[in-house]
């Protein structure tokens, strides 16, 4: 069987050596990049502090767009967080062997993206020290969250998703940390020894591990599809024109996978280049991810067409007016940017040469991320700005505070990811070994 098996065939010892190499002390470029990211993050915290001090008016919040850039960016980051668990759970169950060399990076991305997303409801809520109000906890007034509210479903969906993704990630890391423990010395060895829980790779451990991993994948599979569906119901359960649609759940899930894969490429391509991982992240991996972006992009285009058609065919005057306003008025530029980035730009991936060219893939991925951010913007801001009554219509303008917080959230994400790839194996040692033909003495006895 040739698919998924590396053509140059590194040996098991090569895999340990190459993954260990990624943990060596980094160069100046890395520190320069980290400094830049940290500077942006300082801006993020300064803007947030300003908003807490002076109030929510700093974020440009006014009726009718009380949900503006914060919720847009929240949905954007939750969407990014979809690719990791999709790769580690769904593609695991489908036995797609190409996932092995990218899944660790993608899982880390998922956790950091959901953590970044989790900041936004807090920022948006203003007094974030009361965020525990969202959770059901016993209290003397017998006040409980209203479990009929989509916002409460969202709290449950996202905290479950973050917990299960983290568990999945840690379980996958244990055998790899054991390999690092056995290859390192001094204080590093002591830390790895603690984190590896004394993993030895004995037959009993593997037996329970494999079963547990399969079950976690089975639990996480519906979870991946449910998270963005629940996020979509935050909108679809409301009556606002442009939101109240049964199409929203699959539409959001597809868009999430689309943007998630774009972010995976944005992280994996530089990693491949700087860590010299070409033997593990090969052209066929890029090709597979390119195809997934193309397919999800085409499905998304179909959903856009459906959305327009449903609105026109509905006979619903307000629905049509809202659509017409979106396409032609104040925010039309955002809508057309979205159509270009999400529908036209990915079409270049029909060519195999584009799918295997890191430069083309990188450019398309950046466009896709821009397009998907604008998609959420177009759902939230123009819909709220043009609902049922003319006297509630309004235009939202971004303020320096919320713009800084949105940009700063990227630095929060990148700081976590860049830190991670230097202290933990960003390539799964065990799973990469599974794709290499195992060492056999006599070919006749082997595969």
């Amino acid at each position, binding site marked *: 069987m040739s698919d998924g098996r590396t053509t140059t065939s590194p040996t098991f010892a090569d895999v340990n050596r190459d993954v260990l190499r990624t943990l060596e002390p980094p160069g100046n470029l890395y520190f320069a990049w980290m400094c830049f990211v940290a500077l942006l993050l300082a801006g993020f915290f300064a803007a947030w502090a300003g908003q807490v001090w002076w109030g929510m008016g700093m974020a440009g919040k006014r009726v009718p767009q009380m949900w503006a850039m914060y919720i847009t960016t929240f949905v954007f980051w939750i969407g990014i967080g979809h690719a990791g668990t999709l790769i580690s759970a769904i593609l695991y169950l489908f036995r797609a062997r190409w996932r092995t060399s990218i899944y660790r990076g993608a899982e880390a991305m998922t956790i950091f993206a959901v953590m970044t997303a989790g900041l936004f409801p807090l920022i948006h809520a203003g007094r974030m020290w009361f965020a525990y109000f969202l959770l059901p906890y016993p209290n003397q007034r017998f006040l409980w969250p209203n479990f009929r509210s989509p916002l409460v479903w969202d709290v449950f969906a996202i905290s479950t998703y973050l917990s299960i993704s983290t568990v999945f990630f840690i379980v996958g890391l244990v055998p790899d940390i054991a390999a690092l423990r056995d290859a390192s010395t001094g204080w590093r060895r002591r830390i790895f020894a603690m984190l590896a829980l004394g993993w030895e790779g004995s037959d009993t451990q*593997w037996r329970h591990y494999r079963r547990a991993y399969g*079950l976690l994948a089975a639990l996480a599979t519906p979870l991946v599809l449910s998270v963005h569906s629940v996020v979509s119901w935050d909108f679809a359960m409301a009556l606002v024109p442009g939101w109240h649609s049964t199409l929203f759940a699959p539409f959001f899930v597809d868009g999430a996978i689309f943007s998630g894969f774009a972010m995976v490429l944005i992280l994996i391509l530089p990693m491949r280049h700087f860590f010299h991982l070409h033997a593990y992240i090969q052209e066929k991996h890029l090709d597979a991810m390119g195809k997934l972006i193309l397919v999800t992009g085409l499905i998304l285009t179909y959903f856009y067409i459906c959305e327009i058609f449903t609105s026109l065919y509905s006979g619903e005057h307000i629905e049509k007016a809202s659509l017409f306003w979106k396409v032609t008025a104040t925010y039309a530029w955002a809508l057309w940017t979205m159509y270009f980035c999400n529908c036209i730009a990915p079409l270049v991936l029909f060519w195999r040469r584009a799918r295997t060219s890191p430069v083309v893939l990188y450019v398309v991925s950046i466009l896709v991320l821009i397009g998907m951010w604008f998609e959420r913007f177009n759902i939230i801001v123009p819909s709220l700005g043009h609902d049922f009554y003319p006297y509630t219509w309004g235009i939202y303008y971004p303020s320096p505070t919320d713009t800084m917080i949105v940009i700063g959230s990227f630095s929060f994400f990148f700081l976590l990811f860049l830190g991670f790839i230097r202290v933990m194996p960003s390539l799964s040692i065990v799973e990469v070994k599974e794709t290499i033909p195992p060492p056999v003495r006599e070919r006749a006895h082997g595969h």
Partner: protein
Amino acid sequence: MATETVLGVFAHVDTTVRALEELRARGYHDLTVYTPLPVHEIEEVLERDRPVSRVRLFTLIGGLTGIASAFLLTIWSSMVWGQVTGGKFMQLVPGGIAGASLPPFFIIAFELMVLFGGFATVIGMVVLGRLPRLRPSASYDPRFTNDRFGVAVHCAPERAASVHELLRVSGAEEVKSR
């Protein structure tokens, strides 16, 4: 009864499998096999006389606990603080719950099923796999997380010599007693 552990270190999958087959044929069942990754061929030999992992039982119990606690929490909290839904309070009446808006509670039940089930699965893996281990077992060798396979045979001291011989003939690079 005193036992001795004989450890054979192998560089290849086929020689490891051959050694395991030989050991089984001679009636040695108390084995520990160390591999850097799960290997299908080796698992196949070992699984013949071992039951399926009980981790799934943990998952089932965790998942059911999640569903039950979600419905308890949502239904009970709606009843202690009655909110009008569909023109009715949710309340206990003879024969069931009236005014119930159950469909949204299924979402909470699903989420808690996955959450509790996932945690229980990991607890099952840790408990059944005897983790965490504070010190390495006597027959463990750091090469087993890199590129070597280990077969540790726990046997009576008088049979150790024949196990040594068996492992060496099957193709072990190194055989030692621990």
